[in-house]
């Protein structure tokens, strides 16, 4: 069950890298960055899962004698990582806004003045 999550996470990461490496439009490259980030987040949060476990909150009305918790630490790490991903996307998008104004295009083949 959990293996599917892990494989999907790695597939998302590979997909995000593919997007960054092949797509020419800068917005698509930014989306690729996001996909790779989300793949890593999926990996982290899946690491903590245990089949049959419930959320690590002592909601005493709903817990039974047999319920047990999933790992809370990867959930905390994922929280941090999501915020980091959002800030990264925000900064990249602001750079893209200014690039479009300055270069008039978002094609990565034409934004190549620094080379050699």
């Amino acid at each position, binding site marked *: 069950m*959990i*293996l599917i999550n*892990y*494989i999907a*996470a*790695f*597939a998302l*990461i*590979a997909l995000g*890298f*593919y997007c960054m*490496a*092949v797509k020419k439009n800068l917005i698509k490259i930014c989306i690729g960055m996001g996909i790779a980030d989300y793949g890593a987040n999926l990996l982290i949060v899946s*690491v*903590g*899962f*245990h089949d*049959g*476990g419930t*959320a*690590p*909150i*002592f*909601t*005493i009305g709903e*817990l*039974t*004698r047999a*319920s*047990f*918790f*999933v*790992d*809370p*630490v*990867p*959930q*905390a*790490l994922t*929280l*941090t990582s999501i*915020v*980091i991903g959002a*800030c*990264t996307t*925000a*900064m990249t*998008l*602001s*750079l893209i*806004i*200014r690039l479009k104004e*300055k270069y008039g295009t978002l094609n990565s083949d034409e934004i190549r*003045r*620094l080379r050699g």
Partner: protein
Amino acid sequence: MNRKKISSLVLAASLAVILICGAASAVQMALGAPTYDGSGTDVTALYEHPESYDNSAADGVAAVMVNENMEKTAAKNVVYSVVFNYRGYDTLGESFILIGAIAGTMAILRREKRAPKQVVDYAGRGFGETAAQAKTDPPVVSAGAAPEGGRYRRRPLIMRCGCDFLLPLAAVYGWYIVLHGAISPGGGFQGGVLAAGTVLLVYLAYGLTGVRRVFHGGFLHASETLAEILYVFIALMGIFEGVNFCFNFVLSGTEETAMLMNDAVGYHVMAGICCLLILMLEALNTDRAEEQQTE
């Protein structure tokens, strides 16, 4: 063309290798013990008698954290306790990232009101521009002022009504999530982002003009920085009491151990995301484009 083919082949091979190694690691990770096998812990007994639990047979840091959570922090939400108590320093660093992103966005999206003193060029090769052709930027529209001349197009009625209805719900719901972080899923970050969604609601219904009239970006930025300084001071206060940095000593032992930090983070995230959204909406400046269309 040959170079392109080699490049695509190398890319395909690299992605295949990453996938295969990832799958191998995934298989191994799935086969091994899960990170925290809580099935041996009786959580109801843990809640009722937290002091009587021992964690000598712990199999990971998470086991220790879950076992001593009720005793040391009395917060029902273990994730909240991990984020603000055990790993509070990481949360501090994460809030720093938000300020860094806002400062960076402000720096990148700023508009020069005058031509810069020295326009330097880069090697002059492959460029058409010279120093003499420095672009002049469009005039600056300051926050809070309505665009000059013309009217902006009013949004459809249903959007305005929807915003009017949902706006207080969004704000209250966001803050509900923030304040109840200790006892239900939630916390400062989640609630703060929800509360910051109000900016987008106002933008959808009333456009940039509405956002400018309702929110003031400079005040949000200043108050967010103040919240951050307060957060650092709360963390520093522990040192003067003899314990280490980031220790929640103010309400130690009660249910709301990390409440001060949580609320500070909630406000900080809300103000910060609002600030980011306002900066980007200003930079895109879609109302002006609409103005030019209607005239």
